[in-house]
């Protein structure tokens, strides 16, 4: 296990990773983390996808996980959601060991998860429907959320009548309307074009600032990870994936994801993290080359 916290050049970055919100100087014990992966190992048959992963997300913190494709990022998120039980180790949600589904979490899946037989509005209010919210109230909230993700007036569209970006936004509204304390996001913007992506990243940051959810965000885009997060965790290449480094991102908030990429501190952090990742990327690359040669 080679988990190293790389302090930035900043003195502020020296302290261990802490939640972005300050919990008053007087509070004695730190509140339990929203998510704690306690030495989690996941095996699929003989294949060890994740090995001894230990990481946490503090309450209200925005954490990104970056790793090469196929390394086990979705697997980790499935464990956090309670959809997949770890082979070894434990997952704790606000200090309690998780049994069954994680009821505190909303999950934005990597693949399309909208119901094709429901309109955008009905998709958005599905969670409220399950919870027994009155129809009129649910629809009012649903339309509010559609507006919030920039889709007002599109509530009657079916998923096949929307673009990929629109569907992602419906899915985002569908997840957030339930007001989950923890939000798990699996490469939500990777299929979007650059402009839409920046718009949605800013939108996400704005929502996050307003509602202060604990976010575990998965991406393979390092720039995206740095510009959004409080902390970036780097995973090793698979098999036996585990976190190899984590970086505290001490860029000021509120941020504009497009502009922050131009700041010297961002570039500095980018190089720092990239140096740490390079080795892993090369390792994955070599492994692939060898596989191809066989």
């Amino acid at each position, binding site marked *: 296990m080679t988990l190293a916290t790389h302090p930035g050049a900043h003195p502020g970055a020296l302290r261990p990773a802490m939640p972005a919100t300050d919990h008053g100087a007087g509070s004695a014990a730190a509140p339990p983390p929203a998510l704690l992966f306690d030495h989690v190992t996941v095996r699929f048959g003989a294949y060890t996808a994740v090995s001894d992963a230990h990481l946490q997300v503090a309450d209200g913190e925005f954490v990104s996980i970056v790793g090469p494709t196929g390394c086990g990022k979705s697997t980790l998120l499935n464990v956090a959601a309670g*959809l997949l039980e770890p082979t070894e180790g434990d997952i704790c949600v606000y200090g309690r060991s998780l049994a069954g589904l994680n009821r505190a979490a909303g999950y934005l899946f990597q693949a399309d998860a909208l119901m094709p037989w429901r309109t955008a509005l009905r998709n958005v209010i599905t969670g409220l429907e399950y919870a027994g919210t009155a129809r009129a109230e649910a629809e009012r909230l649903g339309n509010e959320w559609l507006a919030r993700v920039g889709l007002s007036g599109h509530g009657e569209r079916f998923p096949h009548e929307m673009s990929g970006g629109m569907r992602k936004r419906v899915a985002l509204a569908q997840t957030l309307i339930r007001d989950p304390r923890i939000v798990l996001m699996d490469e939500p913007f990777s299929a979007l074009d650059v402009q839409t992506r920046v718009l949605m990243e800013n939108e996400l940051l704005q929502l996050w600032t307003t509602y202060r959810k604990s976010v575990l965000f998965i991406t393979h885009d390092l720039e995206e990870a740095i510009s959004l997060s409080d902390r970036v965790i780097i995973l090793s290449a698979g098999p036996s994936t585990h976190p190899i480094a984590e970086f505290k991102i001490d860029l000021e908030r509120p941020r504009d994801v497009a502009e922050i990429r131009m700041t010297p501190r961002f570039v500095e952090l980018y190089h720092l993290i990239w140096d740490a990742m390079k080795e892993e990327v090369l390792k994955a690359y070599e492994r692939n080359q060898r596989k191809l040669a066989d």
Partner: protein
Amino acid sequence: MIANSALAKSAPSRPARRPRRKGMPGPLVMTTLQAGLLLVLLAAWYVLVSAKIFPVFFFGNPVQVFEQIFTWFATGEIFVHLATTLIETLLAFVIGVLSGIGAGLWLGLSPLTAALFDPYIKALNAMPRVILGPIFIVWFGLGIGSKVALGVTLVFFVVFFNVFQGVREVNPVILANARMLGANRRQLLSTVYIPSALSWVFSSLHMSVGMAFVGAVVGEYLGSARGVGYLILQAEATFDVNAVFAGIIVLTAFALVLDFAVTVIEKRLIVGKPK
């Protein structure tokens, strides 16, 4: 806010209509050609029979065939038969679809039961179920009961297999998403399994209605007192080949109308169809 109107309107643009292939006539010309082909075939039939190249005893005469159809409709004699066949078809369809959905959901959601019944379902499906007709006549008599029963056995399996497969192949991501959104078992059934299975039922609607129709007509043909199948049976018994052909033509037209009705219903029901 991303309420950027230009963005929000970025729905996928569909190609307006497939461009007509070169040398392909327009729809009106094509319909005329198709009608022309029918006339040519009828004329050929008439000429071949009139010239005694085909024996009229076996092939009938198109003029008399249409006279027979005209008489049926003019006297109103045909309507009771059409109504009988229609009722049998609809009953067989509704009962077959409902029982198929029920059984498909049940077995689809319970792998143990499905494994238990598996060989029996395979056997029942492989069996040519039309041979059950005589047994149904013994059980349910010569009335519509035996025809409906035969139609149901045909429709049931079409729907059953579709629903069964639909339940088995529910998109796991949609299922996981619904669970994460807080669905309990009953809600999963009503908001994920059933709609997903229904889209499979819709895709087999034409086939189900066709099966119900086959069940009704074959049932009538095996023994009955009413229905279009009965008309044909009777005509055959008196060697009235013109009436046999007339019956076949009425049946075909009836099937086309049914199929068209299904298409209309389909268009109204399948809105959020995947694929």
